[in-house]
């Protein structure tokens, strides 16, 4: 009895939940309204079955509950009943399947005039490639991938020279243009999913997969990785910005081609030495850092990371939060490096400086830190020496007091909170797993022991 009542209540509750709860699809932003339609059809068909079956169960439970001198009806089977139920079920299934197959047919066939864009997934970030003026993407191979050629383009393929490279997780797309999105991965499985587009597909290493959609609404959308890809899977976020066509074109024009990135000036340590004089005032003549001036050790840090941070300072992404006074000191200094060449030179000079481990100043429980560091090792490497492909700088042997401060900044939203600092955002999500001061000290104590 109670069971029947509860079942009726659960059915009613489920219906109320369905219609009244605020949680349903995010507003559609692509051409795939047909996908939403199939979901709707499925909801109706299954919803009717759900209500009918459960209410009938509840009815049976009440009507045929045990009473004295009541005996069950004897009926081994009823062919007619079973066949008609089977037929009704088959009709319902067909009603759901048929539209599904038609829409899938559309999803599988990419329109001829679709614009080709490639998304390259790596642990744990996205980057993108456009075909350039020849309309053709150049050949790629994982074997060509290095810190200077992160897309793995074949340097000898003429088709690749004009490919436009977007080496950060923000992708701009024009509105109302079909997009043929090719997906590539250089390490593990990933998945390109924008909930508002209703489409998704895995990126598989060693293969090129695809999906297509037409963005229909101007706006900014969150790009999520939806295939488990390792420890930082949840922090693998990107952004898709849908622009009016003119805005998109001007954005695209600002992005470098492969030929341009390949021709980027090599840093010259000699000329960098002169520029470095400004830096040495705080960071020391050998880049060894100066705790009194709150200047961390920079010798031994990799050039790509130094350059990225200087650019963040220059663009006002770092060093603008009043809670970070030292960063605010650094920002005007970074602005003295006015040219790409100067930046490359000084980074090259810093790379050439002798690398001596910084004095440890933080003490903690290294054994406990070792467990916590397992997460960090995913990006920064087990030896803490930093890994270019995960955008993770070197930690071991660097100024530990600086690490501690930065971890606190990340945790407190001082660093990594700016909308355009997507790599910083990743670190912020990671730093949040260090819940308290002791955890931070412990993990730094372990890094010091590396």
């Amino acid at each position, binding site marked *: 009895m109670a069971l029947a009542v509860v079942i009726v209540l659960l059915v009613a509750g489920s219906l109320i939940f369905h219609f009244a709860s605020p949680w349903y699809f995010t507003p559609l932003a692509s051409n795939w309204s047909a996908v939403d339609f199939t979901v709707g059809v499925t909801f109706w068909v299954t919803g009717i079955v759900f209500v009918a079956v459960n209410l009938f169960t509840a009815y049976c439970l009440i009507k045929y509950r045990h009473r004295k001198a009541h005996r069950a009806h004897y009926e*081994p089977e009823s062919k007619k009943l079973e066949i008609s139920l089977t037929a009704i079920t088959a009709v319902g299934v067909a009603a759901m399947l048929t539209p599904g197959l038609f829409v899938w047919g559309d999803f599988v066939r990419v329109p001829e005039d679709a614009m080709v864009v490639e998304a390259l997934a790596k642990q744990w970030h996205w980057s993108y490639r456009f075909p350039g003026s020849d309309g053709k993407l150049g050949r790629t191979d994982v074997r060509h991938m290095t810190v200077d050629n992160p897309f793995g383009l074949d340097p000898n393929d003429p088709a690749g020279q004009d490919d436009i490279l977007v080496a950060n997780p923000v992708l701009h797309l024009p509105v109302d243009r079909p997009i043929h999105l090719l997906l590539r991965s250089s390490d593990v499985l990933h998945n390109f999913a924008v909930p508002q587009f209703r*489409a998704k597909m895995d990126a598989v290493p060693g293969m090129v997969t695809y999906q297509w959609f037409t963005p229909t609404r101007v706006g900014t959308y969150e790009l999520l990785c939806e295939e488990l890809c390792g420890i930082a899977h949840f922090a693998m976020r990107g952004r898709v910005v849908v622009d009016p066509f003119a805005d998109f074109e001007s954005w695209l024009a600002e992005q470098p081609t492969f030929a341009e990135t390949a021709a980027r000036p090599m840093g010259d340590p000699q000329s960098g030495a002169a520029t470095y004089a400004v830096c040495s005032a705080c960071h020391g003549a050998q880049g060894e850092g100066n705790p009194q001036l709150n200047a961390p050790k920079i010798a031994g840090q990799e050039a790509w990371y130094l350059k990225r941070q200087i650019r963040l300072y220059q663009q006002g992404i770092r060093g603008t939060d009043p809670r970070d006074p030292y960063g605010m000191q650094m920002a005007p200094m970074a602005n003295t490096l006015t040219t790409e060449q100067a930046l490359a030179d000084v980074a090259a000079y810093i790379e050439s400086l002798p690398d001596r481990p910084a004095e440890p100043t933080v003490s903690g429980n290294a054994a406990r830190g070792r467990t916590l560091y397992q997460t960090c090792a995913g*990006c920064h490497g087990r030896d803490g020496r930093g890994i270019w492909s995960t955008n993770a700088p070197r930690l071991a042997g660097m100024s530990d007091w600086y690490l501690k401060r930065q971890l606190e900044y990340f945790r407190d939203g001082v660093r990594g909170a700016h909308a355009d600092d997507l790599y910083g955002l990743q670190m912020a999500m990671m730093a949040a797993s260090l*819940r308290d001061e002791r955890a931070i000290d412990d993990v730094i104590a372990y890094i010091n022991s590396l």
Partner: protein
Amino acid sequence: MAYVAIADRDHHLHDPQTFVTKYIWSQDHKVIAIQYGSVAILVGLVALGLSLLMRLQIGFPETFSFITPYSYYQFVTMHGMIMVIYLLTALFLGGFGNYLIPLMCGARDMVFPYMNMLSFWVYFLSVIVLIASFFVPGGPTGAGWTLYPPQAIAEGTSGVDWGIVLMLVSLAIFIVAFTMGGLNYVTTVLQARCRGMTLMRMPLSVWGIFIATILGLFAFPALLVAAIMLLLDRAIGTSFFMPALISMGTQTGNDGGSPILFQHLFWFFGHPEVYIVALPAFGIVSDLLATHARKNIFGYRMMVWAIVAIGVLSFVVWAHHMYVSGMNPYFGFFFATTTLIIAVPTAIKVYNWILTLWRGDIHFTLPMLWACGFIFTFVHGGLTGLFLGNVTVDLPLSDTYFVIGHFHMVMGVSPVMVLFGAIYHWFPKMTGKMANETLGKIHFWMTFLGTYAIYLPMHYLGILGMPRRYYAYGNTEVLPESGVIVNQGITIAAIIVAVAQLIFLVNVFYSLKKGKPAEENPWRATTLEWQTPDTPPKHGNWGPKLPVVYRWAYDYSVPGADRDFIPQNEPPREAKA
């Protein structure tokens, strides 16, 4: 007659002498069943604990310092793997399969009792290896229970040193154990049925377990192959699944392997695996409903055909787990069609369960509560399966919490409902004591309502776009403030459900000690296991004489009969006369 001789083989049945041969190296299928069951439930409790840790992190992020991303993915992986393989598969087939097949078929024991004993101990070894991975450097693997390469064996995943190796080795050992057990179950059903027990007179429990075992025997080799090849990729650098890739900034030296191949192998096992768990549940729940509604299972023949049809179809639907995996998208048409076709026999089973209640004489006993709970949860989980099985509908929903909600309803809660129903149903036979009714009811209501409170909202979070396998969500559109609150609610519900399982354990121990002594046949059931001379049955089950079966398993409320049930071994009247 030859078949009696086989069913009645008793050369090993001289009474066991010592504690060790009686309870440890026992060859009695009932003891082995209880051994299987106890180990499965113990290791299941570990997995339950892991799920609570996960829920604590999702519900209350940034609160518990011991849950790091590294350990979170380990919890996810081990929870899934333990629940699916080491709990559900082992408990349904190793536990109930072992207990019920010989009793329900009227045999003295399995046909290969020694191998049956080995099966348990090899299973035990696989559990030890699995648990050992918690104590090795780096801990257990965090690759997700699907263990997809390259990520499962590439740097940047938890437990890539030892955890994954132990996981794969443990799986291989488990498969050996399962094969030994499975050969026994199939051969026993085929060879050791007592006189008069035709295939079509077998209770549906035996049918479900029988077909599930056949599925397992054919499907587990695919997992074994996948595990061996992945182990080789990990250990000696072969490239079965590993393409050329850059791991942690350096080339690995692999070339040309196919990650998709692993997924095909895994799901060629993995989908039948769903039915390896579901079919025994289907079978057992049919018997519970028939017994406690005092009515024959409606459409027995259709039920048997449906079990067989589902078994066959389950081998041609596996790639519906891979619609967005990057496999040739044209496969989507085929697999969506086969997947939705499998809904038809499944639906027939549901109808027939309800039609069994219809015009029945329903006793709301503990097993009946769980069986009805199963109908509700299974209908819910089955219907949401129609979303994910249909390729287009799957597109926005795959890899979201909708999937989590769906498979926990259909493959977690539903089989567990049957498990508990079955435990309460056969508890008197296994122990000679009745289980405590009040505690059992509290257990049922907390579990039934609690799990629905967990999983119903998850579907909607999934529709919203909340991805699965995220350690933390941060600021995101797919999880608004209201969603964060729902997640807290889900976590609290999960804790309640976990507490309910402790009540179950208390009930088991309490009833063992102080429970009412059970009658021989407290539910007045027709099937053979209730007709044994002793309760609990002794080694050899039937005393000096094997039963002979004269009728099918569902002679309830037969018009004209003086009682509302006629045991299978009761001779027909005209024969008496």
